[in-house]
């Protein structure tokens, strides 16, 4: 048996390592706390593997550059934080409508605006979902440990390639900057998904045609002889603009449904002591770690508490949350914001059980003690 590759690693570093394991060959970014290490490490590591890093003049340029690089065939990523994530929304919408795979990391910090640059917050849940204008769906993942940052970053690339869509990786400042033990799997243990290349020659290629049995169009790269057109306008399967109402309706529906119809494949979550739980807590990221600790104490006191932790924040694990709602006496959503994911859980579960929330927005983590008191106070 090969020796295990165990490392002490920072969360932001695990993100870069995961991205490289997934096949990242291009990174464009702009410095912003608390995500900067992702840019620094990408700048250091990418040229060593024949990849490329560029520090662009701003956040919009960064996401534009990764879309361009992805269209030219390279797996691409950018990372930012709150204020930068606001600026990324323009490019995010473009990547959605033009179906360009890419990964956008948002190491969240307190907002709004410049907010609390070095403090944790979970306030970008809704911006990840609805930040860019227009109707669309989105995939957003939310790791909770350094190890999970590694595996989830790989998954973000895989989902981006599989569904031809930008994938958002939401991270917490405290995990991005925390060092934890992580076992790096061997290369051949890592499952990698690559975009499906055209199965036909250039003369028959339609860049936005869905082949029978496929979820998304086959994707050629610029420079491979296919000479296709890409636009942010509503387009038909040739890739050229159209304002035909039926085609417009079809495109927006298809972009929405390619994600929403595949929730079972995309959704990932952890169930912690849920089997007999009466008090169910929904939490994600760093907060879920405090919740786990709180649950152990509550259980020791005879309170049947458990946790549902979405790792895929968007799309929502509707079915699982509905099932929990049918069984639990109460669901409490605990998050470092003013109830952003609570509104989602409440919509799904409140017809079956009571749904409460606890949160804070002062840049401090939610402690296990606070959670214990909140649950006990009923």
């Amino acid at each position: 048996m090969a020796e295990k590759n165990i490392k002490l690693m920072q969360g932001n570093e695990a993100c870069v390592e995961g991205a490289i394991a997934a096949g990242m060959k291009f990174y464009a970014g702009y410095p912003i706390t608390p995500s900067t290490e992702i840019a620094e490490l990408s700048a250091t590591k990418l040229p060593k593997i024949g990849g490329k890093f560029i520090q662009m003049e701003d956040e919009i340029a960064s996401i534009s550059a990764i879309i361009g690089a992805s269209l030219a065939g390279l797996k691409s990523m950018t990372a930012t934080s709150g204020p930068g994530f606001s600026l990324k929304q323009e490019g995010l919408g473009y990547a959605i409508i033009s179906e360009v795979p890419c990964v956008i990391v948002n190491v969240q910090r307190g907002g709004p605006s410049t907010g609390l640059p070095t403090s944790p917050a979970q306030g970008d849940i809704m911006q990840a979902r609805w930040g860019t204008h227009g109707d669309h769906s989105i995939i957003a993942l939310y790791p909770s440990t350094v190890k999970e940052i590694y595996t989830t970053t790989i998954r973000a690339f895989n989902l981006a390639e599989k569904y031809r869509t930008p994938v958002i990786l939401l991270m917490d400042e405290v995990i991005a900057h925390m060092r934890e033990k992580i076992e790096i799997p061997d290369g051949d243990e890592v499952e990698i998904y690559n975009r499906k290349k055209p199965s036909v020659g250039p003369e028959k290629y339609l860049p936005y045609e869905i082949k029978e049995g496929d979820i998304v169009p086959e994707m050629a790269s610029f420079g491979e002889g296919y000479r296709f057109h890409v636009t942010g306008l509503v387009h038909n399967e040739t890739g050229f603009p159209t304002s035909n109402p039926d085609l417009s309706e079809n495109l927006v529906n298809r972009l929405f449904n390619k994600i929403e119809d595949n929730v079972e494949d995309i959704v990932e979550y952890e169930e912690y002591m849920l089997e007999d739980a009466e008090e169910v807590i929904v939490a994600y990221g760093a907060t879920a770690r405090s919740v786990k600790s709180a649950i152990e104490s509550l259980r020791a006191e005879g309170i049947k508490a458990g946790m549902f932790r979405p790792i895929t924040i968007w799309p929502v694990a509707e079915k699982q949350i509905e099932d929990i709602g049918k069984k639990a006496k109460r669901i409490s959503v605990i998050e470092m914001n003013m109830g952003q994911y609570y509104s989602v859980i409440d919509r799904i579960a409140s017809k079956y059980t009571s749904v409460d929330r606890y949160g804070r927005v002062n840049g401090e983590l939610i402690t296990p003690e606070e959670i214990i008191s909140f649950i006990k106070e009923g």
Partner: protein
Amino acid sequence: MPSELVDKYFRTEFLPHIWCPGCGNGIVTRAIVKAIDNLELNQDDVCIVSGIGCSSRASGYLDFNTIHTTHGRALAFATGIKLANPNLHVIVITGDGDCAAIGGNHLIHAARRNIDITTIVFNNNIYGMTGGQYSPTTPTGDKGTTAPYGNIDANFDLCNLAQAAGATYVSRSTVHGANMIIKQIENGIKNKGFSFIETITVCPTYYGRRNKKGDAVDMIDYLKGNTINKSAYDKLSEEDRGDKLVVGELYRGERPEYVESYDKIIKSF
């Protein structure tokens, strides 16, 4: 009969184009394909990147690798494309609003990096797509729908801007002189670095009509009478130079090209 250039380089199924009668954009677009034809570039190796606006619609009509991006960001997309596939001849089509207002910062930094991209600005002195608002190149005093009492902004000299920011090929031409545009685009593509070609075009519909500049022919005549070639200009004394617009190749420089510099880092490992 359409020319052979149209058959070879245009996606004829998407013609006619959306430009107004009298618009100069067709002259510049033809010049682009003529330059590519003269250089005998393989169509598969050319990538045309455009922003948003009248000029930026050109990418869709052209049979290359083409992308119509977001407003102002063509150069940022192009930077990613060029870095990812340095074999591509990357040509950016942009307008005065796209390139000098919302995309101004990207222009400065693409020029500063001297990345091997050829940028062609269709400068019509107005925001045409949105119906005639004043742009960064609308002459001071001229009118737009958002400058009903005359524009009080100073207008941008884009060639000076590009040169100061670090472009290694800078030229200006007008739609009166198609051959000059073609030559400049050829030289811009041949330049290993950031090339900036400003082509003054005409918008009789929005800029011309509001400013009583006459029809398309009058506007092109005006360009003929109010421009001076750089070689002639340089021979004039300071007082004889007047305020004519200088056209021609305005600057050539030599600096390391960005992608080549990055490749040196890769090769060092």
